[in-house]
């Protein structure tokens, strides 16, 4: 009989939710709410549980996320008993704008026609101000939930307000901004939604990661005071210390051997999703090829292997265990049972330690139960300086 690889997305136990999360869940359905918290503090879970409540009460709600992968992941987390109304924020905004104004979102023309054309928020603001009350697309019966709200620009929030939207529930983490110059700070969101700083709820306890993974994530914490540093998680059923493996050199395992071990790990835990997070497309393809060509001894046959590249139409399946190979740029907000950070010395930008540390912080926090770092035999001094020396945080394997 084939092994069941279905991933379980269980609701939390009552003991798993702390008092702040209880409060976040108990916030009234209407009004404006901002929930701030670091990776693994359960922001997305809180947002999804709220979406479940809205769905159960037949409310007109929508959950917006920053990218397609997170959208797919959230749909799985939501469970199969009811469908989740969710979308990526940009795609949704573009369609809304067209349906309201019957034209495309205005952009700022660049000299180079092929260059990225940024959104002309001033023009959007002007256009929005021309709407009469009866033309507003939203009213107080609409509910919008925003996950990773720090990745949406401040003007996005003010535009939604201009369009008549009153009920917001935003979860955000300033330490996870993708492009700080285009993202919203905590203050930006508070201002846009008219939320008092005192009413912003901070989630501090790490809910997702096991203690050893959370400890490693803490090591890379980039220390932005706007988002509180998550407290370490309490007791978890099982946990192992993150590992650092070096491969490819003399006396070290080959890439093929490492891949064989990853496949055996997947075989031991058939319903767990192992995310291999690569620094770029070259490494991603190299790992895809290596997984494809590896055939170690397995009890349950080869696990499903998926990869994602920008512009890919096929959605990824977060509902089954197996291996998912993605680039670091796509990993934010996602959750894997085990995260493997491939070729860690090739991550950028080396000249900006804060940004590099943030990237490691985000990548490490993707692993719910275990994190394994891989490097080739040619370590980068900058990356090495970021890694913990303490073997209680990271075991260096030979």
């Amino acid at each position, binding site marked *: 009989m084939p092994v069941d690889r279905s991933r379980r997305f269980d609701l939390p136990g009552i*003991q798993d939710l702390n008092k702040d999360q*209880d*409060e976040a869940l108990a916030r009234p359905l209407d009004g404006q709410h901002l929930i701030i918290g670091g990776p693994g503090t359960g922001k997305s879970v809180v947002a999804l549980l709220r979406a479940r*409540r809205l769905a159960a009460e037949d409310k007109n709600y929508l959950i917006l996320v920053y990218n397609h992968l997170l959208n797919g992941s959230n749909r799985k987390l939501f469970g199969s008993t009811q469908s989740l109304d969710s979308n990526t924020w940009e795609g949704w905004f573009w369609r809304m704008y067209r349906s309201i104004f019957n034209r495309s979102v205005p952009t700022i023309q660049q000299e180079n026609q092929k260059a990225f054309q940024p959104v002309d928020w001033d023009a959007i603001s002007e256009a929005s101000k021309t709407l009469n009350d009866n033309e507003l697309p939203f009213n107080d019966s609409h509910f919008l939930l925003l996950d990773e709200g720090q990745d949406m620009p401040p003007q996005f929030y003010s535009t939604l307000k201009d369009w008549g939207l009153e009920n917001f529930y935003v979860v955000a983490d300033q330490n996870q901004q993708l492009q700080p110059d285009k993202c919203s700070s905590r203050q930006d969101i508070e201002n846009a939604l008219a939320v008092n700083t005192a009413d912003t709820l901070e989630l501090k306890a790490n809910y997702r990661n096991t203690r050893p993974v959370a400890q490693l994530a803490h090591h890379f914490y980039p220390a932005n005071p706007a988002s509180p540093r998550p407290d370490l998680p309490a007791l978890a059923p*099982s946990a*192992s210390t993150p*590992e650092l493996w070096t491969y490819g050199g003399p006396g070290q395992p080959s890439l093929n051997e490492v891949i064989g071990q990853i496949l055996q790990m997947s075989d031991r*835990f058939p319903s767990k999703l192992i995310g291999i997070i690569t620094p770029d497309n070259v490494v991603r393809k190299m790992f895809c090829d290596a997984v494809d060509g590896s055939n170690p001894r397995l009890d349950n046959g080869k696990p499903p292997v998926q990869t994602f590249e920008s512009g890919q139409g096929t959605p990824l399946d977060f509902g089954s265990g197996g291996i998912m190979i993605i680039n670091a740029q796509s990993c934010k907000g996602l959750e894997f049972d085990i995260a493997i950070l491939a070729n860690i010395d090739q991550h950028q930008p080396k000249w900006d330690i804060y940004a590099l540390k943030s990237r490691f912080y985000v990548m490490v926090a993707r692993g719910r*139960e275990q994190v394994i770092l891989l490097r080739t035999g040619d370590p980068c001094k900058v990356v090495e300086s970021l890694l913990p020396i303490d073997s209680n945080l990271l075991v260096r*394997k030979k």
Partner: protein
Amino acid sequence: MNIASSRERGARKPVESWYLVTNQLNLLYMLAAGLVMEPSGFRGKHYVDTLATIPGWVPLFRNTIPAKAFEQVVSERKHLRPCVVLLDLSGISGSVQVLSREGKIRDSNFSSVRLGKGDIAILIQAPLPLTLFSRICFVADEDRKAFEVAAKDVSNVDLRPYRIEVNDSLQCNANDAVWPPVQIVRSRSRNTRQKEASSSQGDLLEAAEDALQVSKPLLNRQISAQALGGLLAMLYHCANRSKLGVDIFKLTTGSSEKTGENFIQDPILAELPSWLNTGEVSEQSNTPARLYWGAMNALVVAQEQNSSQPVNLILEYLDSQLTQLTDEKYKSRLDRLITDMRGFFGLDGGTITELFERNKGSLSRPLLLFCLRERCNDLLEFAHPLLTEAEHLLAGLLFGVRDGWMRLPREMRNQNLSAYVMYRMASAAHQKQEDGLSIPNMARPQPLRAFFPSEIDTWQTSQTLAAMEISKHSKWRDCIETSISSADGSLLDQPRSQNQTFIFVGEATAKLRVRHEAFFDRIGKWPPIDADLEFRVKKDLSSTVNAEANEA
């Protein structure tokens, strides 16, 4: 709780209700835990309520509730809602205290307790099982909704057994008594004196319990109530996999007809009765048994203190034993096991088959499974050709003790099991505290497998019909076979096939039969069969099997 029928009560008296005042979030926590507990039982998530007034004692109001109690229970956070649980304490016996408006406490015995005009509540020793709940009341419909919505957000609260109402008169009729009491004259330090006073009564209760049961449920006084609850639940669910599992569950719940424990061949599992009775293994136990139960004791401590990663704690224990072992054979085996346990989540673990081949026996494999699977239901789903039933049961014990009753999801809490586990957890806590409080007994649940003996030639008609019904309802085609024979005993010709039907020439009779091996295999798998079907089948079989046996 809708389990009154399974409660073994004495003569029926008019039911008197006692009021527990709390908030919706503490109540949810207690519903998951199966117990009304003192604040320390909430492991850091207790919101101030009446239970915090005199830690260790549950204040239960009578007739009316102080208005200040309603204020107290919502004082900590804005989103808290007051609620009142009505408890039916019939069947309870033991010492209580009566609390006056002035905060004075006087001793009483529950059976003779009388509240005077100046008395506002009784204080009864925590914990109490939720089987005493008769109703849950909210003062506003909005509060009830908030409670029910919050219950749906979590995996381990099932509201179906409870009557939930809105009753604003509870708050409207609140009295102006001082609450919490300004001055408590005596508190828990009295326990020791009370223990002495109630010891003779405790003996009588134990004697009565002995008379009621085939044998006495086993109880390790070191084990926490939660760990006991988790252990019982895992034994109950694991029991569907084998006759051994059923026998072990019966032994643990005191319903075994077997007089000794000789039916347990596995030397580690054979120590379960000793461990449950004393917290220790017997003198004749072997090294693997001492290591397994030593690891279990480390887990019991972890469960009690919520202090460390369970796997790490077991590894620490095994490490400490490794240095003390003198037998090279055991030493090298243990060394290999520790290495494999440490590597389970690393890159050099190998496959499960490789791990099981390297580590044989009922010490190693349960401990490996403890690392390899995360949740209790993961273990219940797990099967491997190299794994024996004893090894699976031993793994189940580890998982149950680690998670306790608290962490078990709704699908692992059927009503009869829940009621029994709550009773056992509360009873165990009171025995441990030696406070003499006696909780009404609950009927012992029986795993489904217990209704279908392994000796298939002893099956009665009702059992065969029940197995058929389960197989049909669950769409287990492999559990039923049809034999077709000619009516006159002659050989049948080959049938011809037409529209998915076999057509025989001549008169034939068809007979359905249960394929027992496949049926046992199916009922041993997780998830269990439909809960309503299981309840109905068990009820029918309970009443018919004995009757049929008598007729035979």
